[in-house]
């Protein structure tokens, strides 16, 4: 018994070592942003910072006053994409799973195959179309483009969730006098909430992390999301690793917070949809 405990404890130690090695880049990013400028170029490198210096965090906002704006833009685009995607995907996934409708197979096929498109392939025509319609440099353009990426994924994730819910529940509600939409909203939606949360998390992450649409559909700081803002920032402050790492850390925090609070939904979504952008 004692031997078995020792063995499993050594597995834990090994696991800690492997995980630390794997996540080292993220640790290095954060502590680089916390070191004073001079300590960054120390040789040998300071793996555990001797002094913590927060000054660079303020400098980012002073040197580029648009940084808070980028975060606001990303939040608007991320949340807008999530709401639009769920509003379209939830009823559609329910309909595909439970209602007698023609063309279900086609919708699933289009969704599955569009997950395989290169994003650039969607960005090019959308750039041309949105330019003609005057939708570049607007929240609505970014939200529509990101929804085009997220909707197929949400359909693929949500359909199995609705399939597991018993059809009799809506039947009973219909007999009790509910309309089709009423039965969906009152009975099915609450039961499908784990699926909805999973889809919402993925959609938000797609929206926040997107770089291609952020680069192609925005030209001004007014609508530029964090990813494109960081891209521009790196271009200007090429070797100022201190502030590039601080900005990167900031850009990572919202998706990281979402992931850490909703970890089990992320794993569920990965395995049910088997999808990565």
């Amino acid at each position, binding site marked *: 018994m004692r031997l078995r405990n020792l063995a499993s404890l050594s*597995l834990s130690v090994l696991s800690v070592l492997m995980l630390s090695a794997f996540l080292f880049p993220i640790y290095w990013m954060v502590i680089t942003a916390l070191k004073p400028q001079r300590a960054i170029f120390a*040789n*040998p490198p300071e793996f555990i910072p001797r002094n913590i210096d927060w000054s660079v965090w303020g400098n980012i906002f002073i040197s580029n006053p648009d940084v808070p704006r980028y975060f606001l833009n990303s939040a608007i685009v991320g949340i807008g994409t999530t709401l639009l995607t769920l509003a379209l995907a939830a009823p559609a996934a329910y309909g595909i799973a439970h209602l007698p409708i023609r063309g279900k197979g086609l919708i699933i096929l*289009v969704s*599955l195959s569009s997950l395989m498109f*290169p994003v650039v392939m*969607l960005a090019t025509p959308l750039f041309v179309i949105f330019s003609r319609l005057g939708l570049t440099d607007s929240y609505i353009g970014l939200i529509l483009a990101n929804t085009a990426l997220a909707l197929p994924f949400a359909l693929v994730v949500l359909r199995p969730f609705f399939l597991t819910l018993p059809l009799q529940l809506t039947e009973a509600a219909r007999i009790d006098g509910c309309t089709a*939409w009423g039965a969906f909203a009152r009975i099915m939606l609450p039961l499908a909430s784990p699926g909805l949360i999973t889809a919402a998390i993925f959609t938000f992450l797609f929206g926040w992390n997107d770089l291609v649409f952020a680069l192609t559909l925005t030209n001004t700081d007014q609508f530029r999301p964090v990813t494109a803002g960081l891209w521009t920032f790196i271009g200007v402050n090429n070797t100022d690793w201190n502030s590039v790492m601080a900005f990167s850390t900031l850009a990572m925090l919202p998706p*990281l917070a979402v992931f850490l609070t909703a970890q089990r939904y992320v794993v569920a979504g990965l395995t049910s949809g088997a999808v990565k952008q």
Partner: protein
Amino acid sequence: MKQLRRDYNALNNPPKVGKNTFLKLLAKQWVNYSFVLPAAIFLLVFIAYPVLFNFRMSFQDVRAINLLNGGADWVGLTNYRTILANTVFHQAARNTLIFTAGSVLFQLSIGLALALFYNLEFPGSRWMRGLYLIAWTIPIIVVAAVFRWLFDGQVGVFNYWLESLRIIEDNIFWLSEPDVALGAIIFINIWLGIPFNMALLLAGLQGIPHELYEAAEIDGANVPQRFAFITFPLLRPALFAVTLLGLIYTFKVFDVVWATTQGGPFNTTHLVATLAFRTIFVQFQFGTGAAMLNLLFVVLFGISLLYLWNLRYEEAR
């Protein structure tokens, strides 16, 4: 109750009708279709139409001047001829193959090793394996920034480690030396892909009934035998699916390369997707870029069909 159920079924199962009565059916069952139509229209407008738009554009001479009014000349297969004769495109195509093969091979084998490891029960196993997914969650531009810093030629930590281990003698500028840049990018992409492979394979491993291992243990099978005769055969469908998904997702990678090297130095890290992006959004050669994307799409579509066919087979079982 039984009668009610029968009535309900009769109401909901459409009778077999020809296509000309589709509209009648739609009118009768508009409630059912109202659930699906908004999403279907969105997919049509923002996915199907753009793909066709791209296809059409690849046969036109679309440039910055005639982009907005739509009056570009039809040029037949000229765009395709141009790229097939372009040596940079050849290089990008070759890079895409190397990048995909290298990334998928290592993501898969490291992901499998980690999945097997974290399938064991030990204190902390559950929450530690979840934390690998952090790499998958954060924006790729952030990952790119961090690795640019780690790979930095003058003060990067990678050089420091390799030099202390006496593997290299002089500083290497990982992302700006033509010989090593593609390798460095593949390294970054492997790091990014490990959590995804690991999570999917772990789910596959957990689907294997535990009783099988117990029975094998009673029958005297050792660990390699248990792996060869239980784990591997039962994991094969998951391995196949993960491999195909890995190929698809790696083949279309754009962000990782664009955010680190933008295809440089001297086009040595250009993939088809990044070259198409540069052709379109930097050089404004929309027609030529669209043709590149269509070629990429044809290959992706082939692998996707294989994946979908496999998915169907899996669901039928």
